[in-house]
């Protein structure tokens, strides 16, 4: 019962909408990871000082974006779970009351 009480005051629709937005954001960031492509420039720029940095830059940028994507996706999942649990508890109450 205490667990159900903790849901009092939650706007489920707004939370669900935020969860959807976060999922979309996660998808965009995930797609963005694949667009970080600088390493291939190392061939035309071979011999330059810049060429040696293209690989490490790409590695760091991809990992960073992946981390960001994961965080956003995880929060989106948490919000989805929360809304599902609240809906369940509300439904449970409705059934009991009727």
């Amino acid at each position: 019962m205490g667990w159900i009480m903790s849901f009092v005051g939650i706007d489920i629709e707004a939370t669900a909408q935020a969860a959807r937005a976060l999922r979309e954001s996660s998808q965009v960031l995930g797609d963005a990871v694949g667009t970080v492509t600088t390493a291939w420039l190392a061939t035309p720029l071979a011999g330059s000082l810049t060429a040696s940095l293209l690989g490490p830059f790409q590695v760091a940028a991809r990992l960073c974006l992946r981390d960001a994507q994961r965080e956003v996706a995880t929060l989106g999942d948490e919000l989805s779970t929360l809304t599902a649990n609240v809906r369940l508890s509300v439904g449970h109450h409705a059934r009991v009351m009727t």
Partner: protein
Amino acid sequence: MSTDSGSTPGWMLGNAEAVLDTAAALHTLAALVDTEDDRVTTSMGSTALALGWHGDLVDRGDQAAGSVSSLFSRVAGDLRAAAEALTGLGELLSSHGPQLTSLHQQVLDIATALLWSDLGTAGQQDAEAARDDLNQHRRLLAAELDDADRTCRDLLQSATVALQDLARPQVATGFLRSSVPSEVWSVFRDRGLVDSDLEQSLAEVALACTTSAELWALLAEVDADRLDGFLRRNPTLAHRLTLDYHPQNPDDPALAGLYAAAGPLDLTGGSIAVDPARIADIASYWQGLRPDERTRLRAYYPALIGNLDGIPVPHRAAANSWLVDAARDQAEAEVAQLLDGGDPRRLAAAQERLALFTQLSPPGDTGRTVPVLDGGRVILPAGAPAVLAFDTRADGRFAQWHGPFGASNVAVYVPGTGTDLGSISTVDALMRRLVTEPDTAGISWLGTDLPDTVPAAAWTRYSEDGGESLLRFTEGLGLADDQSLTAIGYSAGGGIVAWADMIGAKFDRTMLLAPSGAAVGLPLNTPGSYPVAAWDGSAREVQRFTQTAPGDLIVLAQRSNDARALLGFGGLTGIGVGLFGGLGHGSDPNTHDQIIRVETGRFCEPDEQQPCGGTRVGEVNPHSAVTWPDSDAWHNTVGVVTGGTVLPYRSQVIGDLFWIIPVHENVYVNDAYPGTNPVPIEAVTPTGVLWGPMLGHLVKDLAS
């Protein structure tokens, strides 16, 4: 000559456009990250309000939007800095590169003239002076480019170091935390949507654990309700738990109980093989556990729980989600490292793996509209993929459920020779197509080692091992009595489905697509017919179908057993078996008296119904065309899965052999044939063994 033709580095004459294009792409990416920063901030702000926070939305929005410390904005800034660095270099290259090329040519021309022409003393001095002027100009341009290169390198290095500082895969990096004011963050923390301070500390300690036992002991400190979220937020810890398919934890009575229920496990064949008789015990034991015990088992031992037949489908899926995440992250890290000057072949392989794990089980429309709950907690969100087997070792193991778990019609599809983890997504696509049918679910199944080549596919063991594994897998699905199960097997997969049927799998229907054999009959030392009872003695009623397109050379495999049967008639069965021991997949499915042959027919327009009116299936690539959608063959498969209709196979006599044996030909060989009308599956029956047509077909096929 003070400067020869080789003194200008090649990159200075190179492709400025490529550098500028890359810079533009990085600018675009930076803008995208900024946009997502805004969206995440807004979403979190509205969530905080929805969760009961009473702050001022406008102030919060201003504060968040104006924040310069957001990690998103720092990433965007670093990307932009790299873009600007490359832009600077690219712009200079685009102006200096062509000049250098021209100067280079002029110097060459002068050198040639000096070498081969008689310029006279004055002319030679003039030429040398001109050459020196040109070289001087070259050196100036090159020096400017060198400076630009150094500047670009320095800026890129700064951006790289800044990004490396942000990318700390070992711990949660705090992108979300940095995007909102602290009071908003507190709402998330208080609601348990992010790690508490205690959990953060625990995660840092857990990272130092060197053994699974230490990690399990620490995770016991995390409340079971919060365990999934904690591990999602700390993926490095979660990944460490995905490696062991046969974990040993003497301190865990729930795991000990599971092993006791499962009995001896055989892990030698690349799968976790359990005695089929134990599968119900495993399911029963699992149901008897408390939800928090099940949560811990899924999280602590995902490789075991995700791949053990008898664990209920949603729980397997929840466990395997850890494995898929870990495989994808590992591939991502591998690609990232190899991009930094790694072996190109290893890089290509790692990129393939990353693409594979990204495309396998993408989140999205799963056909399931409600989440799966256990003890009041969501264990599988509605949009989450349901992977029922996952192992990246060797050729890999994989199974995925598409569509609603409660669908009345369930199909499991076993692919053929050469299929491995890298190509199973083709089967996934077929199943996604199948489950567009109402009340239908489809499972792509790679639960066994399939032959790598056509010659290897002749070995019986592939059917035998795969058939036993398929029986265990389908038994473990725990389908309800009102759910029908159709096993579809293509090519070597047909032999596997047939074998599982032969040893008593509880299928309602089978569809053998261009199968390697029927698994029954000589020289396999198997029964000549499929048993009436299931493996455990329970009653079963299986309706069996097969279809093979005209012109498919798989008939040579299907009918190879006929030749052995003839040896048998000559009293030479022993020789046949001895010579071909371990080879073959049993009798010809097309003429077996328990199997209904259906017509592969023609191709259709996407919304066309049977009989189709397009090109005959088999005119191009007859072996694989039987699996292609939008054809009579596909409609047959759908009809068998859903209890709909099929096209019965029809042939006509076109001659005779030795004036006795009639030679038959498929009616669809005649292009003018209007098409056979579809018939409900319950209205068709096997034609039985017809030796005359069978031999006639054999002769006709071999001749063609």
